[in-house]
C-alpha cells in the first residue's frame, strides 16, 4: 500500500522525506507523550510504575527479537536466555567492580552480544525450524549453567538467584519502582531511537533482504553469514539491556524469577500480536499482552466469586485460557499484527470521508 500524503504536503529534500517526525504537531505529541511517561511516578500508584518498568524491559527485549525474527526472519527461542545473561552481567559488574548503572548496562549489552554471536554461529548452516532448535539450545544451556555448583558463589547455584545492588545514578538511589521508572523509560527511548535507525538504513535493509529472499540478497552483495551474525548480535545486545534493567528493577536475577522457555515463547507471541518486522510491533504487542494478562489475573478471582462452585478451577486456569484465546483470535483475525491494523486506520483517517 502506497504511503498516502495529503495534497499540498510536499518535501523539499530527501532528508525531509525520510524524517519520522514530519510536522510540528508530531514533535509536540511525542514530547507530550514522553513527558507523561516521566510524570507517572507522581501518580503514586505502585501498579503503574511497576508495570511501566515491566513494559520498558519487555519492549526492549522485543525490539531485539524483532531484528532477528521480524526483520531477518531467523526464528529465535532464546531471547529470555539472553536476558538472563544481561541480568547477570550487569549484576556481577555492579557487585564486584562497583560499576555505576550507566556503565553496567552497556557492559551487559556487549557481553550478551558476545554470547549472542556464539549462538548465532549455526545460522549459516541451518534455517527455519532447525535454527529455532539451535536457539533453543541457548535457552537451555544458559539457565542450566547459572545453576551449576561450581559457579554457585557468583550465580547463586541451586538457590536460583542472586541479589542485585540498588542502582544509583549521580548519587540518587533508584531502589524504588517509582524511581526506577526514570531510568527504564530513558533507556527504552534510547533503544527505540537506535532500533528505528537500524531499520531504516543499510543494516535494516540488508536484514529484510535476507528475510525476503536470501539468494537474491547474496547475489546483490549481502554477506549472509556476516549479516545473520549481526542480527544475532543486535538481538542479544537488546536482550542484554533488557535483562540489565529487569535485574536492577527487581533487585534480583536468576532462574527463579523466570527467564525460561515459556518467556521466550511468550516474547515471540507478543511480537506476532504486535506485528513482526515493524517498529511499532514491539510496543503494541508488549503493552497489549502485559495489560491483557494483568487483566486476566485480576478478572479470574472476580469470576470465581460469581461462580463459587468452580472457584478453584477458575482461579488457576482462567488466565492461561483467556490468554490463549486472545492469541488464537489474533492469529485468525489479525495475522499481520496490531501494527498493520494501525497503518490501515491511519490510511482510512487520511482518506476520510471516502474510506469505509
Amino acid at each position: 500500500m502506497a504511503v498516502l500524503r495529503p495534497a499540498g504536503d510536499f518535501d523539499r529534500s530527501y532528508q525531509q522525506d525520510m524524517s519520522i517526525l514530519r510536522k510540528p504537531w508530531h514533535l509536540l505529541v511525542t514530547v507530550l507523550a514522553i513527558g507523561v511517561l516521566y510524570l507517572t511516578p507522581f501518580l503514586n500508584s505502585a501498579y503503574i510504575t511497576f508495570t511501566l518498568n515491566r513494559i520498558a524491559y519487555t519492549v526492549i527485549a522485543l525490539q531485539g527479537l524483532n531484528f532477528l525474527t521480524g526483520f531477518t526472519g531467523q526464528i529465535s527461542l532464546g531471547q529470555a536466555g539472553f536476558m538472563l545473561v544481561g541480568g547477570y552481567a550487569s549484576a556481577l559488574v555492579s557487585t564486584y567492580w562497583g560499576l555505576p548503572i550507566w556503565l553496567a548496562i552497556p557492559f551487559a549489552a556487549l557481553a550478551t552480544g558476545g554470547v549472542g554471536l556464539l549462538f548465532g554461529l549455526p545460522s549459516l548452516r541451518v534455517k527455519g525450524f532447525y535454527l529455532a532448535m539451535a536457539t533453543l539450545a541457548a535457552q537451555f544451556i544458559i539457565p542450566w549453567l547459572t545453576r551449576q555448583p561450581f559457579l554457585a558463589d557468583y550465580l547463586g547455584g541451586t538457590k536460583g538467584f542472586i541479589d542485585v545492588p540498588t542502582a544509583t545514578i549521580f548519587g540518587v538511589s533508584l531502589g524504588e519502582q517509582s524511581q526506577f521508572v526514570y531510568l527504564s523509560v530513558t533507556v527504552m527511548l534510547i533503544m527505540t531511537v537506535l532500533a528505528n535507525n537500524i531499520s531504516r538504513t543499510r543494516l535494516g535493509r540488508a536484514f529484510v533482504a535476507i528475510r525476503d529472499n536470501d539468494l537474491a540478497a547474496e547475489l546483490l552483495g549481502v554477506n549472509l553469514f556476516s549479516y545473520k551474525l549481526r542480527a544475532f548480535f543486535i538481538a542479544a545486545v537488546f536482550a542484554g539491556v533488557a535483562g540489565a534493567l529487569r535485574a536492577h528493577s527487581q533487585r534480583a536475577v536468576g532462574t527463579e524469577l523466570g527467564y525460561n522457555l515459556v518467556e521466550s515463547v511468550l516474547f515471540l507471541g507478543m511480537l506476532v500480536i504486535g506485528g513482526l518486522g515493524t517498529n511499532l510491533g514491539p510496543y503494541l504487542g508488549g503493552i497489549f499482552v502485559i495489560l491483557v494478562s494483568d487483566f486476566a489475573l485480576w478478572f479470574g478471582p472476580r469470576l470465581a466469586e460469581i461462580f463459587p462452585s468452580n472457584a478453584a478451577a477458575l482461579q488457576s486456569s482462567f488466565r492461561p485460557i483467556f490468554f490463549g484465546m486472545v492469541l488464537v483470535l489474533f492469529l485468525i483475525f489479525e495475522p499481520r499484527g496490531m501494527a498493520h491494523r494501525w497503518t490501515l486506520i491511519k490510511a482510512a483517517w487520511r482518506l476520510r470521508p471516502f474510506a469505509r
Partner: protein
Amino acid sequence: MSSDPTILSVENVSLSFGGNAAISNVSFDVRQGEIRAIIGPNGAGKTSMLNCCSGFYRPQKGRILYKGNGLDQDVTKIPPHNIASLGIARTFQNIALYTGLSTLDNLMAARHIHMKQTMLDSMLFWGRALREEVEHREFIEEIIDFLEIAHIRKAVVGALPYGLRKRVELGRALALEPKLLLLDEPMAGMNVEEKEDMARFILDIHERRGVTIVLIEHDMGLVMDISDRVVVLDFGVKIGDGTPDDIKSNEKVIHAYLGQE
C-alpha cells in the same frame, strides 16, 4: 563492434546435477558493450548458464573469466556475495524482489555494496549514515525516473502487478551500477505493449549507460531485433553462435528450435 575487448569469457563449462548434465562443455564470450542473447528450447540450460555466470551455481568443469575490471577474475571461484562488487548484476526468471520492502527500499538495498556506513553509523543515523542515505537516494531517484516507476516509489512491491515488479527488479539490478547485466527472461509473460517498453529500457540501458547485456529470451522477433550476437543452447550443448542472421540460417538451430517455415 568486433574489435571491442571481451568482458566475459565462458571456457569449457560443464555443470551437472547428480547424473544429469545441465551444461556440457560450453564456451562463448561476451564483448564489451554488446547485447548478447542466449536462446534455446526449454530445459536447454540457459538459466543454468546464467546462474553460473552470476556465481550462483558452481560448474564442475571450466572457468568463467570476468574482465570488466582489467583483470582475469574467475567468477566460479568468487563467493556469491562478492560477485556484485565485480560489476555483475542480474535479474531472475521468477522475480526475486524483497517483497516486504517498498520499491524505494528495494533499490536502496541494492546500493548496499556502494555504502560504507558501519553498524554504529546505522544506529546513530547521523553524519556518514545520513549523508550516504541522501546521496544514494539521489542516485536511486534517477533510476526511478528512467524506468518510469515514480508513482510506485513507496508501494510495497509484494502488492505490485507482474509487469511493474519486473521493472522494479530491473531497477534493482541497475542500482548496483553494473558493467555486465544478466537478464533472465525480462519479458516473459508480458503483453506486446509491456514487451516494447521493456525492450526500450534495455536498449536505453545499453546505449546511454554503456552496460553490456546478456539476456535470455523466448520472443525470437525481439531477440533478433535487439541483440548483436546470439548463443543457442540445446540439451546443454552449444549448437550455434553468431549474429542473428547467422543463427536464422543455421541448420542445426532451425532443426532444434526455430523450426521450418
